[in-house]
């Protein structure tokens, strides 16, 4: 196994370690309605942003990092942003630490094909 393959394997292991690491269960749904239960690195924090009114206000950003190999194995492919309103977006559903369900749409997807992971920046979504 080459170093690159090892790095990709380690990255997948870190992302999906829910026993002793930061891995967290997420449900991924593609625009066609196919779903997959995966484990990934989910992040949801608040911070100061500038809406260009001259004042800093509170914003909330969420993201999830998934293994491309796991997505492929689940038959889903790589998520990406869907701008077309005639289509359903890629959805990420996750329960937070208190068990509250959250539904997000993939707003921006940044794959790293060298490490075999994809970073999905999320935004809120209403069903």
């Amino acid at each position, binding site marked *: 196994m080459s170093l690159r393959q090892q790095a990709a394997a380690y990255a997948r292991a870190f992302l999906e370690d829910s026993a002793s690491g930061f891995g967290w269960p997420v449900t991924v749904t593609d625009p066609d309605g196919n779903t997959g239960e995966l484990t990934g690195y989910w992040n*949801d924090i608040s911070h100061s942003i*500038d*809406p260009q009114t001259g004042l800093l206000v*509170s*914003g*909330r950003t969420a993201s999830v990092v998934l293994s491309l190999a796991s997505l492929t194995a689940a038959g889903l492919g790589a998520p990406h942003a869907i701008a077309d*309103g005639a289509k359903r977006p890629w959805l990420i559903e996750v329960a937070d630490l208190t068990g509250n369900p959250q539904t997000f749409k993939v707003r921006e997807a940044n794959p790293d094909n060298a490490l075999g992971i994809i970073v999905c920046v999320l*935004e809120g*979504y*209403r069903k």
Partner: protein
Amino acid sequence: MSAPLIQSLIDKTDSFERVRDQIAAILLLESSAQVVMAAASGKDSTLWNLRVFTERANPWDVFQDPPTGDADDPDFDPSPLVNVSFASETFDKSMGDVFERQQGVALYNIDCYGFAISQEDGDGHKPADNAAALVAQRAARLVRNILSAAKYTYLGLQTKNQGPVSGRWFQSLTAFVPSTNERSIQHVEAVRLVLEVGVVELSPQVVGQTLQAVGIAITRQANGQVLLTADVPPA
């Protein structure tokens, strides 16, 4: 100088403060009335609702945790926010005087924040960035129409020649370019209206002291001599 010269307590609001509060009061009153009229017309009255604030630095913190998925939160109000803040006031030296009255032009920033998150729509979805921009612009439309109405030429604050408002004029309406770097889960877009209001500002005056009344009579005699008779009360 060792003693204060202003003998009365300055316990009033200046015109620029009154006008700011009046703008907010007008927007709240009229948007509430619009909601009632919309409901009576069988329309979605929530489209006419505005949440009005004054001098708030972070009014749209309320949008931080919107319900997502199938969840409903009855306490979450997605109505657009309007924040009225005083920006500046300049004075025209050619109008007014150095003793009491100054004619000023006050500028107010009326920021309209529209919120949206992406929403499932049949086989597609409504994107949040588009929806938030339309909500903000709808709020700006309401604000401009309400404050530009003929009934509010002087913002309900007296008449032209009596002050404190001599007129109002919208200087600009600007939609802020949405930032692509913030990547918040909620989309909030803003539109700013700048309202120019002519105001009169008054200042504390010298409080006169009670004088003793002194009666003086001046007479001219037949020979032309001028005589003066003074009636001075005892000290």
